């Protein structure tokens, strides 16, 4: 009896302790555990064969390609906005790539590190065309639907306060699906969320043409992947996977030409692709890690265009998400 109790206690205290060396765990497991949305076209959504695609999904595939040379070695865990942080803290996932806004409290007191900004977004309002509104400033006494556990839930109150307006009510739902259903049934006048999410949700509505996005952007929503505190090597690996995607685009390295680029004499390209120096070893990988990543997913621009760019149903222009050399603010530090 005593021995059983002791054993149980030992197991429990072990289970509570999160292992520090995430990369070793991932390698031993043979797959990356990646937290994504429960279905948001363009960012992370499964098809009928349960194959995931999207901007956030491709980022996890890039990490897996860097580690395993195989972008399919990822286990995707769909999470609601409410449950996502618990999953990361408890160690159920290695990285959360789920259009999550980088805020100071999440980066500090919640115990996470943001690796970068995959998508610069801002909060907007989706409303029925028939209401005939031109601006969010006319939302006096409106009923507003929002998903619980998001930064959107906090911004909406601030926006109304700052503009001396009053909302009638803010109804918070546990999942995106429930929120959208409530908006569609007419429970609320407007649905507020990140604009990229509103664009994706609008496409899923019965008649997208009946709904319109109001022009205002009421907040900064830098969406990016995050890891938990306490493992600097893993944080570096995720961060530099993101920078590798940006730097590859800047240097013109694409999925198609990466094999030729390996022979390039450009010193920047040589360092990035590992033909000069062993920079990949600094994050626990081999020097040619970027070659594997680009072969698997393409550079940042290719990932963007494939999932949310103008040629996709979402049709979102690069805007802020263009490289700094092309008028945007995406900027990768040098490999050196």
């Amino acid at each position, binding site marked *: 009896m005593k021995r059983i109790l002791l054993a149980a206690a030992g197991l*429990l205290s072990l289970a*509570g302790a999160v292992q520090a060396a995430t990369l070793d765990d991932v390698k031993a497991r043979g797959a990356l555990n990646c937290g994504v949305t429960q279905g948001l076209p363009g960012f992370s959504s499964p098809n009928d064969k349960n194959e995931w695609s999207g901007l956030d999904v491709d980022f996890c595939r890039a990490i897996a390609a860097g580690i395993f040379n195989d972008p399919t070695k990822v286990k995707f865990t769909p999470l609601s906005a409410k449950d996502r942080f618990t999953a990361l803290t408890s160690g159920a996932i290695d990285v959360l790539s789920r259009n999550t806004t980088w805020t100071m*409290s999440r980066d500090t007191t919640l115990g996470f590190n943001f690796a970068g900004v995959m998508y610069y977004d801002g909060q907007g309002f989706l409303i029925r065309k028939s209401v005939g509104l031109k601006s969010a400033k006319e939302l006096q006494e409106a009923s507003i639907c929002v998903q*619980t556990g998001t930064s959107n839930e906090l911004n909406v*109150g601030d926006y109304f306060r700052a503009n001396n307006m009053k909302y009638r009510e*803010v109804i918070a739902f546990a999942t995106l699906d429930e929120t959208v259903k409530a908006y569609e*049934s007419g429970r609320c*006048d407007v649905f507020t969320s990140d604009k990229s999410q509103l664009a994706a949700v609008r496409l899923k509505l019965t008649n997208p043409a009946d709904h319109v996005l109001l022009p205002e952007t009421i907040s900064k929503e830098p969406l990016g992947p995050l890891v938990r*505190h306490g493992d600097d090597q893993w944080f570096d690996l995720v961060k530099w996977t993101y920078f590798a995607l940006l730097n590859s685009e800047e240097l013109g390295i694409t999925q198609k030409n990466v094999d030729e680029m390996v022979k390039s004499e450009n010193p920047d390209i040589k360092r990035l692709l590992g033909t000069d120096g062993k920079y990949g070893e600094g994050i626990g990988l081999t020097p040619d890690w970027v070659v594997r990543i680009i072969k698997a997913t393409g550079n940042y621009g290719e990932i963007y265009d494939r999932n949310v760019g103008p040629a996709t149903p979402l049709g979102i222009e690069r805007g802020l998400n263009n490289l700094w050399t092309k008028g945007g603010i995406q900027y990768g530090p040098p490999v050196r």
Partner: protein
Amino acid sequence: MSEVSPAAPPRPRGRRWSWTDPKLRSQVIQITVAVILLWLLWSFYSNAQSNLSRLGIASGFGFLDNRAGFAISQSLVPYNESMSYGRAFLVGLLNTLLVAFLGIILATLIGFLMGVARLSKNVVIKALASAYVEITRNLPPLFQIMFWYLAVLATLPGPRQSWGFGLQPLLGAIGSGLSSIGLGFLGGPLSTYAATLAAPGVFVNNRGLVVPRPIFEDGSMAILYALIAALILSFLLGRWAKKRREATGHFFPVFWTSLGLIIVLPLLASAAMGFPVGVEKPELRGFNFVGGLRVIPEFVSLLLALSIYTGGFIAEIVRSGILAVSKGQTEAAHSLGLRNGPTLRLVIIPQAMRVIVPPLTSQYLNLTKNSSLGVAVGYPDLFAVFAGTTLNQTGQAIEIIAIIMAVYLTISIVTSTIMGWYNKRVALVER
């Protein structure tokens, strides 16, 4: 933790420690278990502490004073997003208590009605009650909440097409109905007359139920005092009537007299003060009705689903309680000349209560705990506000889960205590 074996033989003097001594053995085992338990708790605590500090996650209860920043759609006390997490906790707690309290009352009414109806000799009533019990008991509560929210309340018209209740829309509808079947000479004037009446004050739409809000002006306190006086008088009347009945055998209609008192006294007081209660009527302005009182559909669907679901179980408990009273009791009551109503009310139910109350307590506890399912339809109960939004914004899972556990435990223990007290009162007094 008293002695495990009551028949312990007296320990021979001078004999030392022996594993065969049952008293000593039980003490050793008890101390060992207690030490292991304490050590387990301590290791949980220290483990959590070291993990939290290593990951740099905030801990402690200081967050309760921080600004919450999020809005809550239903609040019984004044609340806005610039108030603290502690205040948000209070709002969530009151919302949970509100839906649990009303749900328990409603479920009890439905349950007693249906339980008695299942024993009815009327075949139709019996079949209806049986169908009700079988359907509600066998569908998951979450499904029932979603059903009321999405399939019933969401199909109501929007605010601009609200159903208004009052004399005007009723007469107007009859008028236009008459006109449409060719009786325009009757319908026309009726519609015209309806239009001259005051607009309706009660509206139903997919945003909820809107009713006029009473405004208490100076002198309203007199009405409250009159109500309290009426309640005290009714109580005294009941005691007097009981005494008289026991002494003389005469009945006094306590219920109807008390009801009359409770209605008439406040009315009189109100008339004396010159009717100090005004009314604020809701008005459609922009998106929504402004003014008046509003009941949100999230609350209605949760309340309906919980009461109807739990009512099915209570009906079965009531039925079993009544069946547990032997048929001889009914026959004895009848032979004393009591009719069916009084037999049920004075003889059967009081005895059935002994069987009904203990399982009824479990149902009340279930209803209270099931109210946390309201998060699925956006009802801001304690679980949604605190274990949902607050937990997510602050990340302080251990503190928040501990608070939530303590709160549900407290609510349940209080409910059990009250029901236990009531159970003692209705228990069979053996003489």
